[in-house]
């Protein structure tokens, strides 16, 4: 049981770590998609089937497309995609900050005695999720719906070119 978890964790972490260090943006994005798929595998391992498929549908299916389109739309030539390495100071301070946070978190986790419930793997059916979404969490569902609509409208407004502004530039 734990071996599966460790394999999933190593694959996910490896993909994410390599993605963050690569110079080619497209490869970074594709590896990150692999690491999202790893997170979905973790959800499957934990028995949260619905969340795993939702993660695949949203991240691998939708967010990845937005990311890849953004990568392709924000470059002038193919050479633009190889990101020049950043200054060493920036990288080092980033690593120090990340390492410190990691150390504190892992130390806290290891030091805390966790009372693990001995109950078997909890199951949650789609029906239960639906009932909860429509019952207890109905208000949050509505708010999330409004948020998504507003956010997507806003995204379109921000990203769409002003046609009057630079009419000579557009091909």
């Amino acid at each position: 049981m734990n071996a599966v978890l460790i394999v999933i964790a190593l694959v996910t972490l490896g993909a994410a770590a390599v993605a963050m260090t690569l110079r080619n943006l497209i490869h970074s994005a594709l590896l990150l998609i692999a690491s999202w798929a790893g997170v979905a595998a973790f959800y499957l391992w934990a028995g949260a089937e619905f969340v795993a498929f939702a993660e695949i549908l949203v991240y691998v299916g939708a967010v990845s497309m937005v990311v890849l389109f953004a990568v392709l739309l924000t470059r002038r030539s193919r050479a633009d995609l190889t990101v020049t390495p950043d200054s060493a100071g920036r990288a080092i301070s980033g690593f120090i900050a990340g390492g410190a946070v990691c150390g504190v978190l892992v130390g806290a986790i290891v030091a805390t005695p966790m009372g693990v419930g001995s109950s078997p793997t909890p199951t949650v059916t789609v029906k239960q999720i639906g009932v909860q979404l429509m019952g207890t969490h109905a208000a949050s569902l509505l708010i999330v719906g409004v948020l998504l609509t507003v956010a997507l409208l806003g995204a379109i407004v921000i990203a769409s070119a002003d046609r009057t502004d630079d009419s000579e530039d557009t091909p």
Partner: protein
Amino acid sequence: MIAAATTDAFLERAPVLLRDAVTGFLPEPWRTLVNALIAVGLILGIFGTLFAFITLAERKILGRVQNRPGPNRAPIPFINKRFFGLSQPFADGVKSLTKEDIVPRDADKVLHYLAPVALLAFSILTFAVIPYGRNLVPVELDAAVLYFFAAGAATELAVFMAGWASRNKYSLLAAMRALAQLISYELPLLLSWVPVVLIAGTLSTTAIVDAQAGWKFGFIPHWHVFTPWGFAGFVIFMVAALAESNRSPFDTPEAESELIAGHLTEYSGFKYALFFMAEYFGMLALSGMAITLFLGGWRSPLPFLEFIPSYLWFGGKLLALIFGFIWIRATFPRLRIDQLTRFAWKFLVPLALINLGNTIVWSLMSNSSALMQLARWPVCAAIILVPFVVLGRKLSAGVAPRIYRYA
């Protein structure tokens, strides 16, 4: 797979009985594993063969429609009989295996190799949750429909990888076009099955098939397609499925006569064959899902025809839908890219949303008196027909000049 119910006819139980006879003596953990492997092997074998003969059937039917014989030269080896070119797919297979595999010099080698593999893997994954017959579903999942479309959504990634890795600007442009099409039609595809989930109250494919059991007046099956919302949903689903599987009339991403096969330009030999195979697998899987969601799954249309085993009914419906796909390809001209996206966003998506509301009206009226039960038929038909006519008129009024914004 569940153990067969003992009340079923022998033919109905035959596949499960046969499997149990083979694996029954194995100890428990191995038994499940071997059963799973058998299911995988069967799916690959049956759908692989089906793919081979559908390509032949497609070329034959296209030939028939266009008044020419179609491929009829390939002989059966050793006996030298032709049988209408029945061995053509195998000849094609050998040809694509032995062809040179050309990789452009500057291509992204890894991604160029990975794209067809990923595409095929994802499209095979979708076969796992379709119920092929009574008790014949490879993986029983609580969120099966969601799984199906999650695996299907991942195929877009492979299209992008193919276009990007080829290092050819035309490939890349065509891949972006293909992605625009796939994303646009993903919406009506997903929206069109939500009413089914709403009525059946479940995301499990077996339960959705069970929800369509029985006959009204003894001869009208309770299939979802025989309701106003179900019929509209089915039509929207099939149109979106045509576009999702890159079939004509929505095959602009790889229009052979206009853009040298789009994102597949730099692919040759066996990799191209893999793309081809994945496209047909996608078509078969979407048809299987359409059957499960709307056409009663493996259920027989009439009570006295129930003696025919369920898996044969499923196969028959599948072949009928595939024939529909081929017929549409033979008769409809290709859409322009702007017509295609306009059709998705201004016609299919609003219609699918209205259909969702329509389904809510339908299910609210089902609890009331007999008069309401009768009244919901014309009411729901009107709710979907009026927007159909209005939106359709608007759509045909827009054949005005194109705006070349991104061309």
